[in-house]
């Protein structure tokens, strides 16, 4: 193995070097491997182990992400995720009739290679779990900036059941420098599917690597998220959930709202009442969810952006330090970096005022609107690029589709058969 490729989790029968390991994983016979039902049961068992805290499994995993992960791995959740996209989920196990003339069978694509961004390490687990449930082998390159979230999970899975052992044996986890050309090329050329998580530079670099002509690319790139709220229909508990969506991953997740559009005008009763609840919730949730330690540059940026907001005519609500900031602005200010619990609130009176501010890389728009407004807004904003319209509290729940991409169809081959005698 090249000395700069650090093995994190190695399958039971590895090849002699990194490229050999990838080749062995890719060529291993999948047909005799475990079926989807057994795989879902094994992943459900992993969720149970996370909930019970057995075997120090929670160590090394971010506390705030544990609930997300254990809920995600539940068998019912994964089945719902598959059923949302596939008309006949049983096709993952056998040919299933889709109409009077045709049958459908879904098969794993083969080796799925994941490049994981350092900002939200649990993302690796989500895409790995879906891929593994569908019967693929997996190679995961963790960022050198993040801790190893995979090994404890794979160790637990392997000890849990024969199928858990199969899944863990079909998974290779490594870390290597992003400039390690040989390793990057080896992983890319071995991939039947490449999943790239990260910022623009990271995903462009991965997309530029040589690959098989039939390799499927799934890119979860740099996205921006927002929220649209009508104070007339939001309950105080939903305000708290909205703030949780903003603070829980310090806006490092693409799905964390950076701008919140609020119906009304400042000094009007409904708007001010909402802002009171919003401000209280920020103070409460910022204390409830521990934040990563800010470095000097991050702290300076918050102070700078507070000044920019005020100089732009905005009103800044904030704590005594740099825990949280709510800047009420007439329009979203591009120069303000909405990160580390810094959010811009923009009042609106008509939904039409919002559309010009929906960026083309929009991902999530958390919404709480009356039904007729939701129908009108979601149709227009979806055309402008928004991929999800979750309720407050659901903003960061990884779901399928994500970024407008149906993961199941990208991770499987759809095989169609005409029925005999037709």
């Amino acid at each position, binding site marked *: 193995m090249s000395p700069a490729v650090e093995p994190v989790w190695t399958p039971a029968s590895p090849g002699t070097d990194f490229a050999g390991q990838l080749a062995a994983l890719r060529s291993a016979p999948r047909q005799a491997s475990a079926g989807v039902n057994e795989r879902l049961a094994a992943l459900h068992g992993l969720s149970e182990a996370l*909930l019970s805290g057995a075997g120090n499994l929670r160590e090394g995993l971010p506390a705030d992400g544990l609930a997300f992960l254990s*809920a995600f791995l539940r068998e*019912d959740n994964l089945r719902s995720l598959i*059923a949302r996209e596939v008309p006949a989920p049983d096709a993952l196990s056998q040919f299933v009739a889709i109409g009077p003339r045709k049958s459908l069978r879904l098969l794993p694509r083969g080796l799925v290679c994941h490049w994981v961004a350092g900002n939200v390490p649990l993302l690796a687990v989500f895409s790995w779990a879906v891929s593994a449930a569908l019967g693929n082998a997996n190679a995961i390159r963790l960022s050198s900036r993040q801790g190893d979230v995979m090994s404890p999970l794979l160790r637990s899975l392997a000890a849990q059941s024969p199928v858990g052992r199969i899944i863990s044996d079909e998974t290779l986890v490594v870390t290597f420098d992003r400039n390690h050309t040989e390793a990057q090329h080896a992983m890319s050329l071995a991939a039947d599917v490449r999943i790239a998580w990260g910022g623009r530079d990271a995903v462009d670099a991965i997309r530029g690597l040589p690959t098989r002509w039939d390799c499927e690319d799934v890119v979860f790139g740099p996205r921006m998220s927002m929220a649209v709220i009508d104070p007339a229909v939001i309950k105080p508990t939903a305000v708290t*959930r909205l703030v949780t969506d903003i603070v829980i991953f310090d806006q490092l997740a693409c799905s964390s709202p950076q701008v919140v559009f609020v119906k009304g005008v400042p000094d009007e009763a409904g708007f001010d009442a909402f802002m009171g609840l919003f401000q209280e919730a920020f103070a409460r949730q910022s204390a409830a969810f521990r934040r990563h330690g800010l470095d000097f540059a991050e702290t300076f940026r918050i102070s700078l952006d507070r000044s920019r907001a005020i100089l732009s005519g905005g009103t800044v609500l904030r704590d005594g330090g740099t825990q949280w900031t709510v800047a009420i602005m007439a329009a979203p200010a591009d120069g303000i970096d909405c990160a580390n619990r810094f959010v811009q609130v923009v009042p609106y009176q008509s939904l039409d005022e919002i559309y010009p501010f929906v960026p083309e890389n929009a991902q999530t728009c958390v919404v709480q609107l009356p039904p007729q407004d939701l129908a009108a807004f979601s149709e227009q904003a979806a055309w402008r690029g928004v991929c999800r319209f979750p*309720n407050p509290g*659901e903003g960061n729940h990884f779901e399928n589709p994500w970024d407008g991409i149906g993961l199941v169809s990208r991770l499987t081959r759809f095989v169609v058969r005409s029925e005999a005698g037709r």
Partner: protein
Amino acid sequence: MSETNTKLKALMADLFKCSPDELSDSTGPGDINGWDSLGHVSLMAEIQKQFGTHIPVEDAIEVESIADIVKIIDRPQESHA
């Protein structure tokens, strides 16, 4: 008090190591020790085991009280589709 309500409170008292007397219909997440985000997922998992009711993530997020959970358990089950 319904059978569901009584059984749920017994389950929660056991899970969160508290007395059933501490649990009222309006008790919600954060009101008792252990009912944090992870405790909430554990509770949903225990409900599935003991009641056979799967509570989707979207519904679990919106739970504000024990009364809400009782309503979910007692409503007809949804399919996965």
